[in-house]
């Protein structure tokens, strides 16, 4: 039980610090002094103390949606182990449950965006729904690759048995990690798919859906975003940790620094995609994950024969 609690607390720490690392990396690369490491947490703290403005167009759904968004992300978050630690919740097939919880949170935020009746938020909702639909197979194939290697269908079991893996699979696991990091880029609305810093509503995706949220609701959406980031970062980090050093401290550190710095570097060095290119970009990732799965399958076949 203690281990499970520790796992959750550490995950929470990971979730809170990834955004900080991204901001610091960006500041350093741009040669700025930059904001404090904890600034995003202070911002959310400020929002949590504020009132709210609701549009008269919206229904009760608009007020429940952030709770569903956060609630679903929180439940998914409780299934993720940090390398050899045990998560609080786990059952056979929880990888599917987690994927569909993320889908549920997406439905909540998309419907909330459509509830405002704003064409800009509709635009964001349409893009989010499309990208979400396209990225789903990549996510599932990434998980199927893990299941293929480890012979299980729950996160806890996958990563607890993964230590006995054959070293031949190193490259494949690294590629799985890469796929998950890219999925995180897409799901979290980061460059090159979306740019959280953009201020033109026409080109925004994730941020434009929350235009009408303020105060506590906005804070909830931010927190859910951190939790979702940490889920993908941790799965990717675990996949890497399996082949390098399977310990919780390593995986946690890798999740924070690896993904944080990666996102920071990508955001500093490259521009975002043209919007029409995004679908191609996502489909490339889907193709890539299919390729990874196939390579893994062939490798396993060869080893066993």
């Amino acid at each position, binding site marked *: 039980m203690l281990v499970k609690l520790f796992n959750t607390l550490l995950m929470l720490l990971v979730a809170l610090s990834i955004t900080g690392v991204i901001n610091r990396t960006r500041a350093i690369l741009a040669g700025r002094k930059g904001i404090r490491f904890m600034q995003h947490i202070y911002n959310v703290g400020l929002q*949590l103390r504020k*009132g*709210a*403005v*609701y549009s*008269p*167009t*919206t*229904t009760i*759904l608009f*007020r429940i949606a952030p709770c*569903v968004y*956060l*609630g679903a992300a929180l*439940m998914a978050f409780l299934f993720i182990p940090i390398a050899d630690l045990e998560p609080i919740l786990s*059952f*056979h*097939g929880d*990888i599917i*449950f987690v*994927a*569909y919880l993320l*889908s*549920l949170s997406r*439905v909540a935020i*998309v*419907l909330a965006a*459509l*509830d405002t*009746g*704003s*064409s*800009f*938020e*509709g*635009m964001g*909702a*349409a893009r989010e*729904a*499309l990208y*979400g639909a*396209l990225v*789903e*197979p990549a996510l*599932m*194939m990434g998980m*199927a690759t893990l*299941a*293929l290697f480890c*012979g*299980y*269908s729950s996160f806890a079991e996958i990563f607890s048995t993964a230590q006995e893996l054959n070293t031949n699979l190193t490259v494949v696991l690294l590629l799985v990690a890469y796929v998950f990091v890219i999925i995180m880029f897409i799901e979290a609305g980061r460059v090159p798919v979306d740019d959280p810093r953009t201020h033109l*509503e026409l080109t925004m995706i994730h941020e434009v859906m929350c*235009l009408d949220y303020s*105060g*506590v*609701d906005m804070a909830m959406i931010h927190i859910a975003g951190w939790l979702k980031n940490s889920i993908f970062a941790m799965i990717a980090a675990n996949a890497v940790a399996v082949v390098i050093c399977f310990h919780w401290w390593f995986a946690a550190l890798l999740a924070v620094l690896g993904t944080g710095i990666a996102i920071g570097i990508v955001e500093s060095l490259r521009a975002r995609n043209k919007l*029409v290119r995004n*679908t191609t970009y996502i489909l490339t990732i889907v193709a890539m994950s299919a390729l990874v799965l196939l390579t893994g*399958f062939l490798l396993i076949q060869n080893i066993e024969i």
Partner: protein
Amino acid sequence: MYIYALLVALAVIFAIFLAPLRHKVWVATGVTAIAAGTAITLAVMSLTGGVIELAHLSTELFGSETFKVDALSSLFLVIIALASVAVVLYSRGYVESYLKRFSSAHISLHYTALVTLCVSMMLVVMSSGGFSFLFSWELMTIASFLLILFEAERQDVRRAALNYLVMMHIGFIFLVAGFVMLYNVTGSANFSAIEQYFKIAAPLPLFIILFIGFGMKAGLFPMHIWLPEAHPAAPSHVSAIMSGVMIKTGIYGVIRMMQAIDHNIELLYTIGLIVLLSGIITGLWGIILAAMQNDIKRLLAYSSIENVGVILIGLGIAAVGHAAGSNLIGMCGMCGALLHIVNHSFFKTMLFMGAGNIYSKMHTTTMNQMGGLAKQMPITAILVMFATVAICALPPLNGFVSELLMYIGMFNGVSDGHEVLYSVAAIIALSLIGGIAVLAFTKLYGIVFLGSPRSHHVAEATEVDNYRICAMAIPAVMILFIGLLPQVAIRPIAYIAEAVTGADSVAAIDYFSSTLTTLCYVSWALLLVIALLYFVKRHAQRNRKIETGPTWGCGFTALNTRMQYTGESYSEGMENIAKTLIKNTVDGRSVDKSEIFPSKHNYDIKHKDKVDSLLGQWWVKMLHRLNEYVMRLRTGRVNNYITFALGFLVVVLILTLVGII
């Protein structure tokens, strides 16, 4: 006994025709309720006490064939019974507005057909012999044809109904051919003879012929084209029962065939692959087309095609898993498929009823004229919300449970190394279907119920009567029950799946029962967390300033409701990817880029299925070409015609001389 059955049928018809106009529905409801009660009793008795034979029901008409209720029949009996009661109850409110327009006989015919459809579906799943099966099947087709024809003064309704009738009979020919083949070889047309047939004759031809016949009813790609035409034409409660239950009778037939191949591993494997592949194509095709539709009922029709695909994916995985020797995969696939049949019958019935509520108030099913209906029709909005979440297969509702079972099967296939590639193909297809379903149904819900009204009709819409709400509540309760207590709901399903596959699967059932028990706790926890978060939020906002302000227009101040995102723009991205699958028909003209101040434009785009035009076009073209040849003979001169007559006589003469005629 046959005479008695006929007498009862006549009595029901007389009762419906003689009842006063407003009470016809209650006669129909009463009869359906009795039939449904009997069906559920039979199903429960069969599930607890084994197969029930209703031997004497049909001896005069079909010889030695009997009606019997086994495990598989009882599953279908239950969903048919529940949907029938809900639909007949619903029809009261829907038909009410037509009572003044249509004659009494017209209304009576409608209710007679409705009752006939319900009863004939029950007969279809109970008949064990081929000829009684075909009889009930045909009865079902004709009843549903009459039901589609309800608004027969509309030309599109007549065309759709005729199209339906023709398509169904093409399917029927295949079924008859299949059963005749069966009879020829084995001397019996019973379902149980299929097993014998598969042993003595080449099994694949029979399977494929029957698969096409059943697939026509189920809406299998490329035979799905009647669905998106028939559903928008039919009244909503008819679409509900046709889409929710009737197309499942096609799947019933497929399962019956799969049941017959237990021992032939090679055949099971081949058939599993056929079913899996057609499931994947049907599912993907259905949902991609669904996402692009701008008519509520067309969208729902395409989504039914998708769900049939999902069910077939489950069945295919079950067959492949069994053939590979894995009970776990087989059971997961079979239970997932059976549960999805049940689930889909609930949420699709509900969605079509919701569409009916909207149609009866708005007199249109075009999404782009709606918006903000949640304020006018709050209860409908809440009920449809349930169905939407369920059909997107999201936790914590029932759609997720069945897809989870299928996924568990597939992931076990991947992790145990059984048929990895097929499992992976199914995983990709199912996840893509799930993702696009989210796109399609957020579009449906968001454009119809949320936002601001796009036309003035919305403001005049009001909530529907309580009978219709009650009718929608029946499936809603079942959705919640299966979603929140999956480990209870799975028990009868697992029992039926065990009976269907004939394999001893205690270990497999234990495996996923424990998963579902945990899922139950986790689902409740999810609801609790969401409720808690909402409560905490409300509590935190209690003493703060909560203001109301207009939706942020991004600096633009002259916003109007016509500027909202439309259904068409919502799915534009999908359309760009999938434009090869569709054929657009455009009415009017879009705004030209050079028009700085656009004038008034009329622009209506419809996304037609390419298969539809492919199938429709080639024979139209052929007929045209044939006509051209024939037209050359029609010269209009009498002497030519006399030459033709002479030529004909000469040909006859020669043929007689040669001895051919």
